[in-house]
């Protein structure tokens, strides 16, 4: 089991310039089951602002294999969305600058592809689902036309064929009476139904990877589970991988294979869901988990919020960016930036000077 996650270690060989030997290598806690689709190494993104350079993503690495669900977790401003937009080539440049790293998509570096080539990939091989389905759908076009358009562009379908496929897709994502609803406008759908429409658009060309950026955040709690269920069942149907961006660790637990936790633009912990949840090796992850309401235990367990708030990217603290909020912080944390490094098993990494100690405590409990 452990070894299977290591078989892509070659991708990381010598690609990182600054990290420790451990931090750059691939195998971001994946199940390693399918073909390697995407291998991101040491991605660095910053924004040029009037007040100077702001580093938004600082050395993120992960691998995505076919069939995987990778969850990227973090608060707003942790760099999770920016990383994804950078991979998709959707960041406005300027002000965004990609300072380093590479993102190999089936062997080709996404970060150096020309816009025209990226256009051919987007929507066809890699697609994206956005947070607010109402504002992500064009208000003046019928949903059938919007879903059909993707296939007309990428697969050269005729108007009629595209509309037929749109009906099938609406049916697939669980929209009742699809042949009627295909003629409706986005505002005629409820929030959950709109997100299903977005999913239909995202999977229309059977992409290899779907990036879902907080796909349920704008939805009612009762609808969230349904939408995620649709997303997961379709993932199996079209045999793709999913990168799920979220700030909700509860969502992650049930769906993801592996987790990447980010804080202030840096990856702080990476591993399988079990490793990250039960052998937590970073105080920030621990804090996130503690602020999650739990139904098991005895129901009286108190919620423990993380004190303070995430740092402004303009003023990232010295040393470990989390140290001002960390209850274990020592002097070394103020001065030395902890690299992401091995903790226990082959795939579990954390960026904490005391990762081993924390992890051992977690394993004992």
């Amino acid at each position: 089991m452990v070894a299977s996650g290591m078989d892509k270690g070659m991708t990381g060989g010598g690609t990182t310039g600054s990290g420790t030997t451990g931090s750059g290598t691939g195998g971001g806690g994946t199940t390693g089951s399918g073909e390697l689709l995407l291998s991101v190494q040491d991605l660095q993104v910053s924004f040029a602002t009037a007040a100077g350079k702001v580093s938004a993503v600082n050395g993120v690495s992960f691998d995505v294999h076919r069939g995987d669900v990778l969850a990227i977790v973090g608060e707003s401003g942790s760099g999770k969305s920016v990383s994804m937009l950078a991979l998709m080539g959707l960041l406005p440049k300027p002000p965004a600058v990609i300072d380093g790293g590479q993102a190999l998509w089936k062997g080709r570096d996404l970060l150096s592809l020309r816009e025209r080539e990226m256009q051919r990939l987007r929507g066809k091989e890699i697609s994206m689902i956005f947070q607010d389905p109402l504002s992500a759908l064009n208000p003046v076009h019928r949903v059938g036309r919007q879903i059909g358009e993707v296939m007309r562009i990428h697969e050269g379908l005729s108007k009629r064929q595209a509309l037929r496929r749109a009906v099938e897709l609406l049916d697939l994502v669980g929209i009742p009476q699809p042949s009627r609803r295909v003629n409706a406008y986005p505002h005629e759908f409820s929030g959950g139904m709109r997100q299903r429409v977005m999913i239909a658009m995202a999977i229309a060309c059977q992409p290899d990877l779907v990036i879902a950026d907080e796909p349920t955040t704008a939805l009612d709690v009762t609808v969230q589970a349904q939408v995620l269920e649709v997303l997961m069942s379709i993932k199996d149907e079209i045999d793709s991988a999913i990168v799920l961006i979220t700030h909700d660790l509860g969502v992650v637990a049930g769906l993801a294979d592996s987790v990447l936790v980010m804080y202030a633009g840096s990856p702080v912990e990476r591993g399988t869901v079990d490793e990250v949840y039960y052998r937590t090796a970073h105080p920030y992850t621990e804090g996130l988990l503690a602020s999650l309401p739990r139904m098991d235990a005895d129901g009286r367990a108190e919620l423990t919020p993380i004190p303070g708030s995430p740092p402004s990217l303009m003023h990232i603290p010295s040393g470990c960016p989390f140290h001002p909020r960390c209850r274990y912080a020592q002097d070394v944390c103020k001065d030395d930036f902890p690299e992401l490094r091995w903790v226990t098993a082959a795939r579990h990494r954390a960026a904490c000077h005391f990762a081993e100690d924390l992890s051992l405590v977690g394993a004992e409990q």
Partner: protein
Amino acid sequence: MSMVPVQPLGDADLAAPSDQAFWRDTWRHFRRNRLAVVGLAIIVVLVVLAILAPVITRYDYAAIDTESRNLPPFSGDHWFGTDNIGHDVFSQVIYGIRVSLLVGFLVAIFSTVLGVIFGALSGYLGGLVDAAIMRVVDMFLAIPYIILTVALVGVIGRGLSAVIIALIVSGWFVVARVVRASFLQLKEQEFVQAARALGYGRLRIMFRHILPNALQPVIVYATLAIGGAILAEAALSFLAIGVLPPTPSWGLLVAENKGLLASQPHLVFFPGGAIFITVLAFVFIGDGLRDALDPRLRS
């Protein structure tokens, strides 16, 4: 058997149903605005009159009939009377509709299309393209259309085409600014990001995705611009830098007969009234469209 036959999906099911709920809605609101409907009715009548001009009129608008000069209105077949060299004023005014509508529509259409193209490029692409287009716009803003026409007349000679070109050249940038402002706002919307994430090209995003969302002020502007162009043509012709006689322009008719205002006011009244009614009708329609297209003003 209890099997429910599944109806295969026919093409009829996929055909768009009674299309365009949006436009139906707009029309419903437009209809409620009485002035707008009156305006529309006036324009319809004018268009019919313009088309049927040869049938309706008894005299050639350019014919000089020295036997019947200075006739008052309703003298026999000369319903609007005749001027001091015997032109039939009714024929002149009716044929004048053709000139006015031609100028109005051509100027509105071309300045809108040009304005949309440049405004869209400017607003969506930003940067150098935006700066370049906006500086050109600033330049045109500083030139009064009358001066521009004088210059154009100097280049291509006086006539209808000079008027039309001059008005297009001095009208497009108003649309460009309106469209640019809409695009600046709309390009930040998530559906534009989503369209990019689906791999759509820039032109498709600009004109198929953003433009339909920005069309409302453009339609209103274009309608008002028709009236504006008609008025401007009349003014240019009045100032003798517009169309050439005997082309029956209302502005020209007013200019030619302005000396007779005291003795024969009908010579100015009829073409002047025609300008007034036509421009007013387009303003009514424009206002009605503005209200009907704006969901916030619908109640």
